[in-house]
């Protein structure tokens, strides 16, 4: 009995930790995104609330909380109200299987990567619900685009993970990170970005599309579809969609770090930290978060630089470009691994 209580308690702690970690990051991200994009735009960005405008996310939250919650008269109320909650929940799910330090993981599933791929596609359902429930043509078009986009990019996304999984021989994210712990000559890390460069590029492109960010922000391209699927949402429901979107951003970047950039491993630093006892976790988390933010910064930079693609180009790029490339990578990895004797 006590074992059951213990495991429930452990799970609960994990859930709370994940939500806390994500929420803090999302709050910081909204500020960072505005600041980074503003600098690229030769603007200042938020600088009124708190030092460097750091309290801006809180002000935003308060504003959104006090906004009127509008439900369109002809909307499908149940679906309409459920959609933002679902979007939020579905966005949280994949985070459970991503660790930010050795053992610092909510649920170290043996089929971790598979689980992530499976639950990541759930958020499409929430978007479609929002699109249909709003009873708005822009929303519907945005929702349809989301469905098309998710379908096209999910496959290359999963296939690009396959190469990494084949090398490690395990689906657990912990194992995948551990497999990248060593380094050549002690300084050049043995990250999978070097073993699987093609997969990395495919994954990076596909994950941007999954996040729905420029150049793949077609589901909510504002110059065409006003705001896409969340056109009709206001106040906290809108905030939940935004929250979900930023969680995707965090999770996607974290996954990229886990799969290709060695997770919490950094040559020289992490081996040294091993002797620090409990403090080694602090170092690990710091390394992980630093890498994650490097990826996030890169994606913000991309947003500040590129224009939006066309719908048909987006689909063409997914099916004709990324998919064959991902398949080729899987075959190549298989051949190389077989020749090396199943290493």
């Amino acid at each position, binding site marked *: 009995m006590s074992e059951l209580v213990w495991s429930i308690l452990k799970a609960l702690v994990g859930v709370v930790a994940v939500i806390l970690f994500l929420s803090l990051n999302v709050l910081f991200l909204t500020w960072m995104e505005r600041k980074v994009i503003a600098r690229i*735009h030769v603007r200042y960005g938020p600088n009124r609330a708190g030092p460097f405008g750091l309290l801006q996310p809180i002000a935003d939250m308060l504003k959104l909380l006090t906004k009127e919650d509008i439900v369109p008269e002809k909307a499908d109320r149940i679906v309409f109200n459920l959609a933002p909650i679902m979007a939020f929940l579905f966005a949280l799910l994949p985070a459970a299987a991503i660790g930010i330090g050795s053992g610092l993981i909510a649920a170290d599933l043996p089929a971790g990567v598979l689980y992530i791929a499976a639950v990541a596609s759930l958020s499409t359902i929430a978007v479609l619900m929002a699109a249909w429930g709003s009873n708005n043509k*822009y929303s519907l*078009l945005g929702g349809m685009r989301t469905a098309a986009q998710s379908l096209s990019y999910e496959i290359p996304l999963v296939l690009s993970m396959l190469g990494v999984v084949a090398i490690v021989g395990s689906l657990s994210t912990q194992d995948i990170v551990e497999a990248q712990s060593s380094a050549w000559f002690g300084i050049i890390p043995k990250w999978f970005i070097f073993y699987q460069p093609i997969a990395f590029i495919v994954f990076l492109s596909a994950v941007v599309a999954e996040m729905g960010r420029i150049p793949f922000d077609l589901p909510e391209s*504002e*110059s065409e579809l006003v705001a896409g699927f969340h056109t009709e949402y206001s106040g906290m429901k809108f905030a939940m969609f935004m929250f979900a979107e930023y969680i995707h951003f965090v999770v996607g970047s974290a996954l990229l770090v886990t799969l290709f950039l060695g997770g919490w491993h950094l040559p020289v630093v992490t081996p040294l930290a091993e002797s620090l006892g409990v403090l080694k976790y602090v170092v690990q988390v710091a390394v992980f978060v630093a890498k994650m933010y490097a990826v996030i910064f890169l994606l913000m930079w991309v947003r500040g630089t590129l*224009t939006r*693609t*066309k719908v048909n*180009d987006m689909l063409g790029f997914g099916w004709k470009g990324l998919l064959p490339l991902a398949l080729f990578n899987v075959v190549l990895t298989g051949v190389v691994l077989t020749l090396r004797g199943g290493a």
Partner: protein
Amino acid sequence: MDAEQSVELEAEQKLAEELAERFSAEAEPKRRHRVDVRVDRSSFYQLAEHLRHAGFDHLSCITGVDLGEKLEVVYHLWRQRDRVLAEVHVELPAEKPEIESVVSLWKAADWHERETYDMLGVVFTGHPDLRRILLPESFQGHPLRKDFKLEPQPWYRQGRAELWETEVRVEAAEDGETETMVLNIGPQHPSTHGVARLVTTLSGETVLKVEPVIGYLHRGIEKICENRTYPQIVPITDRLDYISAMANNLGYALAVEELMGIKVPERAEYLRVILAELQRIANHLMFIAAFGADLGAWTVMMYGFREREMVLDLLEQVSGQRLLYNYITIGGLRQDVPQGWEDNVRIFLQELPRRLKDYERYFFNNEIFLRRCRGVGVLEPELAIELGVTGPMLRASGVARDLRRDEPYSVYPKFDFEVVTEQEGDTLARFVIRLKEIYESLHIIEQALDDLPEGEVMAEKVPKVLRPPKGHAYSRIESPKGELAFYVVSDGSPKPYRVRIRSPAFCNLSAFPHYCTGEIIPDMIINFASIDIVMGEIDR
């Protein structure tokens, strides 16, 4: 008329004689580029047909004037070959104002005739779709009639808003018909540049039909002008195309100066050219910025605004205003430019090309941008002329027409510049042409600064109260968006009898439904953006 001028008027003379002979019309050459034709209603259509086949391929404007017992419809037709603008006046009885539609001859007539019907109640027989265009269907009366009473509409008096039908009926799909969907883009939408509204029929994301609906920003400027004195109208013109107000001031000033026979001092002419070209640069930078926003490239938007800021600073230094300048006025300029202003312009001339290099690097190395714009919304040159398209849009289709060269005004003939054209006629060409025009404008400003004479900036003997002699003048300028024309009729009083504004964006927008079908929504949106519309000018 001295000998030199009569040689110059050879083409005009020939046309006048020909028309007088064949259609028993009163025709006389008024000045270079202008032939005044008065024709009977019965022979009007033959005359129009004749002109159409004689090379008058550009219908510049259709104007209605209420003369009391009679209504007058004025057609302005342009022939590029010998650069003659025929001004055809037809008088109609006020009680039954009917005239043949010329839509079958010039497609551009479509919206002009609708507007004339809307404002003056002239019925154009044979027009395919004669509806009100700027005012709502339920509007009562025709406001530009002289007997129109400026009083609230019945619905307002009765307090019954339901009588005010502003909605354009959107045909609902038939029962069970699920193939097409009507998407109402605007009047409030992030990419309609104001309050334009596009009623779009879609099949999936493919556009089957587009109907622009305008009039949401209609302020009755043409009517207001009839109740203001001539100088009072200058600030009103600012509010037409509010992002190139200087060009509007210039266009109007030229029309009144022609009526009054005012000769503008040379320094003012040079400064006008500099200001007009600065305004063109500002307008095109604004276009690039807005175009970037429509593409999802917000960085470009911010950069465009940053560069435009430099021009606005220069214009602010001369006029004290940043948007609505009210600076170019009848007879010259309000005041001379401040000391050292020329040096500021020179600094700008050096700075801008350096910054434009960034734009070129950004756009032309950007595969996503090129793929989005290339081949989208191709407008064939013949169709473009037929539809009355002017300005950068027309030149992007490979038609080298530019009023600064074709019908020179101010001191443009003194400067060396190129009429840039692009051959493709697609959205990319319309973008590139604006970028190239900025360079041409810089070139013109440089020359004008080099030769800038000293002297007065206001003509002598411009009276306090302007009473131009009876008559009419049609001035055309190449505004940043295309052909901007003012048709001013004077009855000798201090207020104009009629002011008609031929707005370039109005005509360019009227062409839009003719070449955008078959595209998907994102293509249509950037195609729409490439027209460069400003609703203040379209709705007036």
